[in-house]
Every structure is written in structure tokens, then in C-alpha cells.
């Protein structure tokens, strides 16, 4: 049985009061609650403050390039389906630089848990608009207000028939831990978009702003009902629903399409000379 302590305690480079702290706490709790040992877990991240999370707990880590966590995670999961793969990144990383990979991940349905620390701003590069920054919100780089429509990742994920789509809030770490646990348990691609206040650069979407707006999705919501999920997913404004918005196990995982993966991981297999000889004969 693993405990939160197994995942270690590290010094961080985050600002005091950052929403990342409670997300990290929730993640550790979810890992322990899921009964995972550190060496079974692989955290893949890109670049950004959220992407530093894997360094702050004991587990396997692939901290790659900005926006490229999903492809790297996909490769690792396909090479070894036994790994419990989590992608940890921010809104700029996942929905901006990695937007194409996000769409492809929704289509593929690889069994990966994607946690997006969505603070609606670029933190590491100090305060530019991100894809989820609300239209018209003024920032250092967009003093006249963000000119583009905000990206709604949850709506897009539900629209794309993603199997598991949830929204969490850094201000409710226990609730969030449970969402992460459920996302991990889901067989297929699972997105948890996490509302995360950035205390340094986002003076609009603060703890108070989110706290006023979030409300728990009622128990009578049927996450298997796509239309209901779509209605909830589109709510982002005065009221922001948090919890499991969509859950449907009907799509097969991407891995299941590769018969070679049924035999386990791809490492440690030797080239088959007899088959290679046969293949060479087919060219004669």
C-alpha cells in the first residue's frame, strides 16, 4: 500500500500562494489512493510552471518540450502499455503550442490521464494571454484586451467524443484528487481541466473569482448522455460546473488497435530472423 509520503517532498520554484501547490497535493493523494507505486507512474510534461510538477514528486519523469508532452506520452505508453502515464501541463502548453496534439489525442484515445493546470495566462513567460484567456481581458502583451475568442477545452473534448472529461478547481484539492483518481481509472484518454489561480499574473481569474463561480455538478447529471455533457461543458462564465462532465467507456483504447501490444511492452524482444528471411523472399 503506498502513501502520499512515498511520492516525496521537494522544494519548488513556484510563487507563494500558487494554485499549483494544491494541484500537486491532489495529484499525490490521487496516486496514493489509486494504489500506485512511484516506479509504476510516468509523468510527462512540457514547459511552463505546471510542467515542473513532475520534478516535485517521486516517479518516472519525462520533462520534454513546450507543447509536446502528449506525443511523448503517447510514444511511451505505446512502447510500454504497463506504465501509468500522466500528462501534466498548462493551458499555453496544451492548448496553444500543443493544440494539434491535443486534437489528435482526443481522436486517438490512448489510455493517458491529462491534467491541465488552466490559469488562463502564461505564467512562466510572465503574463501574456493564453488560449483560455477570456476575450477582452487586458494583459501585459495584450494591453487592449485579448483579441481572440477563448478556447474552451472541455467543450472541444466533449464534442470530440472524449471518453472522460472533467473540470476541477485548485481551491478544492480533495474534490480534485477524486477527479484525478477517476480519470486515471478510466480506460482511455481522460482530460481533467483544472482551474488554477495565477497569483502573479492573472488579476482577473483569482481564487475569489473562481470560488464565486464554481458549483458541483449535481448527482443527477448523466455523464454518459452526450447532450447533457455538452450543455454542461459550454457553461463557463457566471457559473462554472466542476466535476465529471462526460464519462463513456464505449470507445476502444488506441492501444487495443495494435495486436502486438497484447504481448506486453515492446522492449526486450529480439529480431525474428526466420520472419526476416521470409520477408526477404517476398522480394524475389
Amino acid at each position, binding site marked *: 500500500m503506498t502513501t502520499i509520503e512515498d511520492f516525496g517532498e521537494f522544494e519548488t*520554484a513556484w510563487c507563494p500562494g500558487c494554485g499549483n501547490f494544491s494541484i500537486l497535493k491532489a495529484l499525490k493523494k490521487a496516486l496514493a489512493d489509486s494504489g500506485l507505486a512511484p516506479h509504476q507512474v510516468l509523468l510527462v510534461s512540457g514547459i511552463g510552471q505546471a510542467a515542473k510538477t513532475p520534478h516535485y514528486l517521486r516517479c518516472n519523469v519525462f520533462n520534454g*518540450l513546450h507543447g509536446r508532452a502528449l506525443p*511523448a506520452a503517447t510514444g*511511451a505508453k505505446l512502447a510500454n502499455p504497463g506504465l501509468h502515464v500522466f500528462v501534466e501541463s498548462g493551458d499555453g502548453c496544451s492548448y496553444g503550442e500543443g493544440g494539434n496534439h491535443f486534437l*489528435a489525442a482526443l481522436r486517438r484515445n490512448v489510455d493517458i490521464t491529462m491534467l491541465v493546470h488552466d490559469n488562463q495566462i502564461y505564467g512562466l513567460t510572465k503574463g501574456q494571454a493564453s488560449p483560455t484567456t477570456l476575450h477582452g481581458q487586458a494583459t501585459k502583451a495584450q494591453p487592449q484586451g485579448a483579441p481572440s475568442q477563448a478556447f474552451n477545452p472541455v467543450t472541444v473534448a466533449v464534442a470530440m467524443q472524449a471518453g472522460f472529461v472533467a473540470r476541477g478547481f485548485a481551491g478544492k484539492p480533495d474534490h480534485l484528487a477524486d477527479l484525478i483518481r477517476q480519470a486515471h481509472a478510466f480506460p482511455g484518454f481522460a482530460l481533467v481541466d483544472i482551474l488554477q489561480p495565477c497569483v502573479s499574473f492573472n488579476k482577473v481569474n483569482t481564487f475569489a473569482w473562481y470560488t464565486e463561480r464554481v458549483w458541483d455538478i449535481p448527482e443527477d447529471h448523466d455523464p454518459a448522455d452526450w447532450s447533457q455533457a455538452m450543455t454542461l461543458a459550454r457553461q463557463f462564465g457566471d457559473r462554472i460546473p466542476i466535476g465529471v462532465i462526460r464519462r463513456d467507456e464505449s470507445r476502444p483504447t488506441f492501444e487495443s488497435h495494435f495486436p502486438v501490444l497484447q504481448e506486453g511492452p*515492446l*522492449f526486450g524482444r529480439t529480431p525474428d530472423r526466420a520472419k526476416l528471411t521470409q520477408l526477404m523472399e517476398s*522480394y*524475389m
Partner: protein
Amino acid sequence: MRLSKNILIAGEAGQGLVTVGMLLAKALVRSGYEVFVTQGYESRIRGGHNTFAVRTGLGPIRAGIRDVDLLIALNQESISLHREELTENALVLVDAEHEDQGATRDADQEAKKDRALRVPFAELAPQKVFHNIVALGVAARLLGLPENVITDLVRETFAKKETDVVEKNVNVLQAATAWAAEHSATFQPLPEPPKPAKRMVLNGNQAVALGALAAGTRFCAFYPMTPATGVALTLGAAAKDFGLVVEQAEDEIAAINMAIGASYAGAPALVPTSGGGFALMTEGISLAGMTETPLVLVLGQRPGPATGLPTRTEQGDLNLALYAGHGEFPRAILTPGSIEECFRLTHTAVDMAERSQGPVIVMTDQYLADTIQAIPPFDLEMLAEPSRPARTCDEPHAYKRYAFTEDGVSPRLLPGTGEHLVVLDSDEHTEDGHITEDLAIRKRMVEKRLGKERKLREAALAPTYIGDEQSDLLLICWGSTLGPADEAAEILRKEGCNVGLLHFRQVWPLRPEQFLERLRQARETVCVEGNATGQFAGLLRKDVGFSVSRSILRYDGLPFTAADILRELNIETGRAQESHEAMER
């Protein structure tokens, strides 16, 4: 005495000229002849002008030529487009019933020279789909191929279809052969071949894929791009049997990052692409360098910049491969010169990537990717077992992915195979893989990574030298230019010139003690490469401090032929070009 015949099948894309060409090439090989196939095509699916050239004879044949002995003109435009390339005794197969005015004129013109053979396609095969088989039957008969070889091949090829399809094809083939027997005109058949041995008919892309399979490649991610796609397609077709995953990624950036992720988790990974895709992958190459993750890239060059000439050939990406990626990290670049080397060097690349824990680039080009040759089956027993990462260690809790070692190579473990943790980071990192801004560690890590280059340099493949111990004229080339340069050198040698050929199958890192003396000894050094700026000559100057006497460069999108090289050398060698023509006719 003519050493070889060059058969050119020309027509529009979509007319099936590759199908008929491949059948002809296979039939020639099974009959005991050598073949060297080069392909020319345009960036379109139907229409345009495509060519499939089969140079054949008793060999050795190392390159294509432009002279045409038998032109199978699947459309009439092909006659006028290739008239200049026809040899004196060439024969042109044309459709007897073609009504186009210009075409008739073209055909008439050739008929006057006794060079046109009007084939009654419609009569021999009432359905148009069988016109290919008519062309095949007539050509095979003209060349003197045994009838059973070609019949068996047609049967095999259509075996998967319904029985009557096979029989219809065979009937058309027989009708065409019989017709050709009556009308074989003045065409000289090929000389009697030796007893045929079993050989593969393989192109460069397929050879690369086979090399990867033989080395245990388990993962391939790609975004389709001519001319490298064939590598992924060959691997994809073999994926189920050979236990590998092949994924068409959403873009090149995804492809390389997926491959690095897969390699991290233990699957030897390969990424095929061409210049534009490779350019997109450069950040990923840098990531492989920084995270010290083994990765094989296959860079099938085509002319640039940007989209360039998408279906033609060039060796213009050497500098791209040398410098791709930001920051400083070691890499190796292998440049096969033949189909055989495509196989062998891809196998080597997988091992090199694992040993150096970083990127290894195999550079081919459209010419090599699409070249088809007959080669004996690869001797699998002779292949060394590629290096593999360990899966366990004695003290899992003390494991550090980037532990400082004497040679810079840290013990590589895979995640999830034991209690150890494998922490990789694109940021500068500590020995245990965690982010650091400690500048002393930064310096040591840079040195550790660069230290691995020494290992690569020590293992560098020596360039291949062909010729006498001392040469007056030394031809230098890399990659696919080997064939035409070798042929040119041999022609000059027969003429009495003392010519050596130095072929670089690895262009980075270079190990000067393997070749510098030879460069210095030659009276004249000529670097032959398929680009406009002499990139390899520049590398020799920069890295080895040696300046070649001159460069012969080609960058019009077509591959070199021996004749091109001889023409350029003419100034120095006098009668070379003449001699080449004498040998060829």
C-alpha cells in the same frame, strides 16, 4: 561493345508504368540479369510525365544512364520528350491505333529511321486495363526473356485475384509475346545470362526498413513526405508480423516526440522524413541530444529550399543534418551509397544510437530511395547484435539516469521495469535528472554530453576506397553519388587514368586518420556531390582542414550519371567522354 541496355517506360501518372516496370525488372532478375532502376515522377497523382528506367545487362551496373535503347511509350508525348535520348538502334513501342495527329507524325518520323514498332494494343487486349501486360509481353520477347519466367511472374502477381483475372492476363501476355515474335524487328536481344541465383528486387526505402527490422526497431512514427514515406509503409506492412508499432502522427513534431517517448520507454525508434519535415523535427533532435535518448532518423533528401522540387533528388541537406537542433550535442550521420548499404547502415544506426544515447541520422535521397537493384539476400547471421539498454540494476534507489562516467555514457535504464526511477529532462539537469540552474553542474553536463562524441568518432565508419594504392585523380563523394562516381572512375581507369574513389558512408563525426593521408597523396581531388554549394567539400575544409581541388555539382533535380561526371572532368582527362561513349555503344 554495349554493356547494358536501358529500357525507358514513360507515360502519365496513373497509367501503371510502375507495375509494368516492376514486373519487367523482376523478370530480368529472375532470368539472371542485373538491373538498376531509376524513377522520375512529378508531384501529381494522375497525368504529368513519369518515367521508370530499367538499365539491364550482365553487369556490374551501379547507376542509371540517360541513353535509351527501348522506349515503351505509354502515351505519345513520351516519344517527343525522349527522342534526344534514343540511341542509334533504339526501338520505340507505340500504340498502332493512336489517332492523335502529332503523335502519328512522331511515330512516322521514328518509323522512317526504322525505330518505331507499332503495337496493336487494342487488338491484343480489347480491354484497356490489359494494355500494360501487352507492353510487358512485347518488351520481354524483344529482350529475349524466357517465356515461362514472365508467365510465372504474372500468375504470382495476380494470384490474389479471381482465377479468370489471372487467366485473362496470361492470355493477353501470350498473345503479345506471339505478336512480338513475328515483329521483333531489328532489336538485339540481351546476351545469354548466367544461371540465375535467387536475388531480391529492392529499393532504398525498403532496404532501410529491412535494416531497421533486422536491428530490432519496434517503433516508427512518421508524417507522410516524399520520398521517405516508403520506409514507413514497408515497416507498417511488417508491423504485425514483426511486433512493432507504426503510427502516422499529426505532424512531424509529434512524430519525433512520439519516437523519443517510445525510445525512453524501451522501443528502438525510427523516424523517416524528408528535408521540410526534418526541419520541423530539429527541436526534437535537440531534445534527443539533451535527454540522451537513442533515436534513428532517416532523412530522404529532395531539392529545397521549402517545398522545392518535391519528387526530384538532391544532396542539399547535409548542412541541415549537421547543424539541426539548437545547442551543442553529439550526433552521427550515416550516408549509404547503395541499396545494400541502406540495409547495413540502418542496422548500424540503431546500434550507434543506443551506444551513444542520442540521435543518429541516415541520409538517403529520392534517387536512392526509389532506386531498385537486384541484391542477394542479406546474410543475417553476419549481423552483430545491436546494443540494448539494461532493465534492472543492483541498487535501484541509487540509480541516476545522468550519472557522470568516464566516457560520458551513463547506464541507461527503462522506466517501469523495476523500483528505479528514470527521470529525463529537457532543461539542464542534475545527475538524477532534475532541473538545475547550478552552473557548475551545467558545465559538467555539457562536457559529459560532448564526451560521447569521442566514442562516436572512434567508432566512425571509414570511407570506402576503390582504386590503386596511389591515385593521380581522386574522386570524393558521399551517399548516393557512389554508383555514378564508381562507374565514371572505372571508365577512366580502363582508359589508363589512375583514378581512385573515396566514398564517405559516414559524414559525421569524421576521423581524419582514416582518410586524410589519401586526400593529401592524390594529385587532384574532385568532390562530386548533388548540391549547388559543395557542402561536403566545405565540411572537409572546416573539420579536416583539407581543400579539394574542385567540385562537380549537380542541382537540377536529376541524379548524376557517370556520363555527367565524365563530361565535367573532360577538361582534365581529355578523351574520357569519348571513351565513355565508345564503351556504351
